[in-house]
């Protein structure tokens, strides 16, 4: 390789290395802000903001979904298999909302420690299979 070309190659590699390091530091610094949601353990540990809107993600605990009145109010528990948080939501749930399914809810904690959601999104997992295969597995949707 001609010296001038080698020089350019080194320059480019150097530029990429510096960019990579800069990007790593920037992303590390903004790590918290890049998290789309808090886990239920974060909330139980008091890491979630008080009196401010944030997002909470977790698995809907089996058997925890209840509709106390005839209206749209739904109560359920979210879990990350360590800590559980109770959630209340009044509105239309997405198609994929079901027990054992991951969801992300936006809202805030009230005085009772219940998360009052104003928006609920279903978080689809990365598993795709035909219904017969899912039926033959015992607990298809509970993969974290």
């Amino acid at each position, binding site marked *: 390789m001609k010296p001038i070309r080698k020089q350019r190659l080194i320059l*480019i590699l150097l530029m*990429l290395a510096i960019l990579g390091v800069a990007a790593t530091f920037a*992303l590390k610094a903004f790590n918290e802000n*890049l998290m*789309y949601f808090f886990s239920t353990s974060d909330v139980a540990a008091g890491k979630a903001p008080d009196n401010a809107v944030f997002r909470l993600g977790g698995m809907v605990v089996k058997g925890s979904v209840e509709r106390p009145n005839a209206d749209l109010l739904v109560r359920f528990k979210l879990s990350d298999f360590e800590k559980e948080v109770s959630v209340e939501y009044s509105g239309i749930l*997405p198609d994929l909302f079901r027990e054992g399914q991951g969801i992300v809810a936006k809202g805030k904690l009230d005085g009772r420690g219940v998360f009052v959601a104003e928006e609920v999104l279903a978080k*689809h997992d990365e598993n*795709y299979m035909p219904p017969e295969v899912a039926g033959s597995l015992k607990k298809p949707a509970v993969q974290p």
Partner: protein
Amino acid sequence: MSWIPAPVSRFFHRTSSPPHFYALADRFIPWLTVIFLLLLGAGLYGGLYLAPTDYQQGDSYRIIYIHVPAAWMSLFIYVMMAVMGGIALIWRMKLAEVMLISSAPIGAGFTFVALVTGSLWGKPMWGTWWVWDARLTSELILLFLYLGVISLYGAIEEKRAAARAVSILALVGVVNIPIIHYSVQWWNTLHQGPTVSKMDKPSIHVSMLVPLLLMAVAFKFYYLIAVLQAAKLELLKRETSSQWVKALLEKQA
């Protein structure tokens, strides 16, 4: 270039000469088109007809046969552009500049398709068209990078200077690629984690995976066809006054 075998190096030097490349592209495009159509037909038939419905999403999941290959291509083409940019900067190779700028609109198209199909799927499945999570946001930035490459090239009159500016932009933007790929693992995102590119076996049933891979390869061939066509045009534009273009025009007239 002592560490590259002589025949390989000779092949590259010959291919990188515009008239030779033009003739080579002409010869390859029909074959590539046939392969592309066969793969596309098999992939669509397998994906839309043979593959079973999903246990949770029903038929809506079939959008992955467009969405996932398009998203893969959006990353792949950008990496190709960065490599071409590096070659253009180091060896000042004209053909690398042409390939770089010809790839940009195709990559932008794939990125756009990935964003739109994802949004169409997101509404019924997640319950929202769009969220600002790490995966979606970084993919949107990728679209802006593509558009930046296209407009920067268009903004500079002198095309060799434009190509150098664009090469640097393509190289700088390449830091975004690992961010897009790993965003779903590094941060909590609404977008699901990787299905196919996991270390253990893919979490997708094989009857659904095969059409997906067929579509992915079909999209690669589509890119090849499109980039060769675009590169041919770009070469003609750049070399209007050269001898081989005149000879070509005379032959066709």
